[in-house]
Structures are given as C-alpha cells and as structure tokens.
C-alpha cells in the first residue's frame, strides 16, 4: 500500500469540524466508501485515523473523518486507499442516501456528488442535516424513508459498527428492496490490514474485517 506525503492547507473546510484540505491531490483518489489511513508524524498522535474522500479538486482534496488536533501547514502522511467502496451499480438513476448517525453524513457526500455528476437524482434522508447540499438533492424526513426507498433504485446507508446489529430494527427495509441497499460501516480502521479484529463484522457468510472486506457491504450480506 502506498504512502503519500501531503500538507494540511485548511482545517474545518466546511461548516463541519471534521474536514481538512490537503495538497497535493493524490494520484489515486479514494472512491466513495474507501478510506486512507492518516498520520501526522512528529505530533502526539499514536495511531493513524481513517479519512474519507469528501471533495476532489484539480490541485487539492478535501477529506473528512474524526481526526486529532492537527494544525494547518503540518505534514500529513496518507496510506491507501483501503477497502471496498460503494459499487458502481449503486451509482443509480435514483439514489437514496441516509446516515443512521448524523456524524457520518459527510462520508456519503462524495457519493452523492459522483451520482449528481452522472445526471442522476439523489434524495437524502436526514432529521438534522449537517451538510450544505446542492439544491438538486431532495432532503427528506426519516418518516419518508419507506416511500423513498421504493422510489430509488439504489440506497447507501452509513452506520456505526456498534449500531449495526440493530439496523434492521432501526430501519425497516422490505425484503424486495434489500438487494439495492449497501451499508458503509464506521469502525476503527487503524491496523492497516494486520487483522487486529476490532472492526470485525458478522456477515451471513461468517466474520469479515470491515477494514479490508468493507467498509461497504451489500445489505443482503449482513442481514437476511
């Protein structure tokens, strides 16, 4: 896995406090759902943290995630991209997006932008939206999720690992709709595929490591 040396140009690039802009843009940008391990050498940081693509520009990149108190102008090492992102089949004509925990909404933003660029429709379910979305994206209430998923032909969810077992109870998805749902799991991705096991996910075909075989899984692989 390649390591890239970058510089932090801006922190809190948006309204959220968990974004940063780096230069240069990386030659192998992460796909929506994939992540980089990020580490600022010479700081008190002990472990790398996962950073996710938010916005790519020609000469810089905006990444998001929960990161330590880094400073602008600091060197930032990035390794990756790691994992499996959202599948191309999800770049549907009508995409529905929903983060079970609002702090994860940023991680779905790059997917929405990719889909919009392909002239598809995007609907975003959120009770308390944490992002500035373009006007083309329709924002819906959680009570509208059931109707929205029927309308969609692809659905991207983001969920913290600890809440994954309760997902079917928290969000009712009819069996006929499940094939078009992909779930991005938020877990600590620190070991760089050393199989530490902290991100292990129970799937229908056994335990899998979200850092390597995820973080995005088809809904049907996780639940019946």
């Amino acid at each position: 896995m390649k390591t890239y040396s970058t510089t932090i140009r801006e922190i809190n690039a948006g309204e959220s406090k968990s974004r940063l802009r780096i230069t240069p843009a990386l030659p192998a940008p992460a796909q929506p759902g994939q992540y980089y391990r990020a580490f600022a050498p010479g700081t008190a940081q002990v472990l790398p943290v996962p950073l996710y693509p938010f916005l790519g520009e020609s000469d810089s990149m905006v990444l998001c995630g929960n990161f330590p108190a880094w400073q602008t102008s600091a060197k930032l090492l990035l390794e990756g991209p790691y994992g499996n992102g959202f599948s191309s089949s999800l770049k549907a004509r009508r995409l529905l997006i929903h983060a079970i925990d609002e702090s994860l909404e940023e991680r779905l933003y790059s997917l929405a932008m990719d889909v919009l660029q392909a002239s598809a429709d995007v609907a975003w379910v959120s009770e308390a939206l944490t992002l500035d979305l373009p006007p083309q994206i329709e924002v819906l209430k959680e009570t509208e999720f059931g109707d929205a998923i029927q309308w969609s032909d692809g659905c991207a969810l983001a969920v913290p690992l600890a809440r994954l077992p309760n997902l079917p109870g928290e969000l009712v998805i009819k069996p006929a709709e499940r094939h078009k749902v992909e779930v991005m799991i938020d877990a600590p991705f620190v070991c760089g595929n050393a199989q530490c096991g902290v991100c292990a996910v129970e799937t229908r075909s056994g335990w899998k490591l979200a850092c390597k075989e995820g973080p995005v899984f088809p809904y049907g692989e996780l639940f019946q």
Partner: protein
Amino acid sequence: MTSEWLLPGTNSNWMNAAGFLGYLPPASCLLAEKTGCFVTPAISWHARKPALDRCLLDYPGGFLLHTGSPNDGFNKVIKNYAAKWRRAKLPVWPHILPRNGYECRQMVQTLENLENIGAVEIGLPGTIETSLVEELLQASMGELPIYVSVPFLSPWQKWLDLLRMYTVAGIVLSAPRGCLPNNGSVVNGRLFGPALFPQLVHEIREFKDSGVPLIAGSGIFSFEQAETALQAGASGIQVDAWLWQLTPPTSPSKS
C-alpha cells in the same frame, strides 16, 4: 550499549509483538532489517469469535484495544499458513493461547514438526493460577525454545521460580490490561502507547537480574526508547502499535 547476545530462535533481538503484523511477515515494515523473527497473532486451540463489545478507545498517550483475540483456531491457522511460514525469510514464532496442558502439548508438538519455526510464544494472562502455569510449561517442553508473554504490571513475578525451572528462553513483557468507560459500561482491554514506557523501563530494571531474559514488549515508540530499554536490562525488543504508524515515503511524493 546494547547486548550482542542473541535470544534463542531469532536472527536478531528485535521483532514485532503478537498481533501487530498479521499472520505473514510483511514485505517491508518500520523495523526493516532489524527484525530477527516474526511473531504471529494469538492462536487458540479452538476458533475464537471477536468480542461482542470489541472496541478501540483513545486516551492521552495511548489507547485501549479490546478484540477478544479472534482467530480461526490452531488447526485452520496451521492449514492456511504453515507452508507460507516455511517459505518466510525470518523464523516464525507462533504465539499460542492454550487453556490447559493438553492444548499446549498438541500445539507445541505440531509446531515442532513444521519448518522454520524459531520458537513458541505462550500468552499467559496475568491472573491465572500458578498450578496452570506449571501445567502449561510442563506440556510445552520439547525441542523448541519457549517464551512466555505476560502483561507487564501483572503479578507474573510469582512464577519466576517455575520459569527458571522449566528453562524458559525469555519473558515478553507485553501490553498491560486496563479499563475505560465506553457506552455506559466499563471495557477491559489491553493498553498500548508511549505513555507505558516509563513503567516498562521500571519493570525491566526491577527484574533484569531474575535469571530469565526479558523482552521489552510494549510502550516502545522510537529507537531511542528501545535503546533505553536495552540499557535498562532488556535482552530484546518487541514493537507493537509503533508498527501501525506511517513512515514518510522515500521519494518526495510517494513510496
């Protein structure tokens, strides 16, 4: 001043700690040419599932990791990796987690028949009965050097007579245990990070003359710290979470 004396079963006295590099030696890592052997993740006789409350919790100077040491069980691990270990450039130290003498004997005897196994590292919880420690040591006796890995700061010193009697090749002072709150409950896990370094050096100094070589197995996050641990009396170095940190690429933009 560092010791030139080589621990049994390794090409140098530097190595990774169990569980920090996966099941196979990586093509490159922070330690590079310093590494003298490869220590596997913990392997139990039966398969172990991940802990239900698995988590990683940060605290100043380190983190708590609780995973339940998930693995596929000894036989499946051997089936998957024995051939690859045989071809590895470094001798392999399987880190085993036997619960009784029978499991220990089965695992050690199987490992004795594999190629390129340099030693066996037995993970001992700090709280087990002395009688079980003796049972495990007795069962492990054979052709391979045996190391025991104990959480430092635990009362492992009460087993010193046994460890000497069974001519254990070394004691790995590995990550101690601790507790932190998480989601309304308290999680017990292993502690890692540079904040442990002063306590590690203290323990090495206290037991350096115990008659069993000590391997500094936690809290090392720089070559200077490793040198300090060696000067304090450690015979070897195991590196844990330092291996997960990223190092700058060798070329300006990428490695």
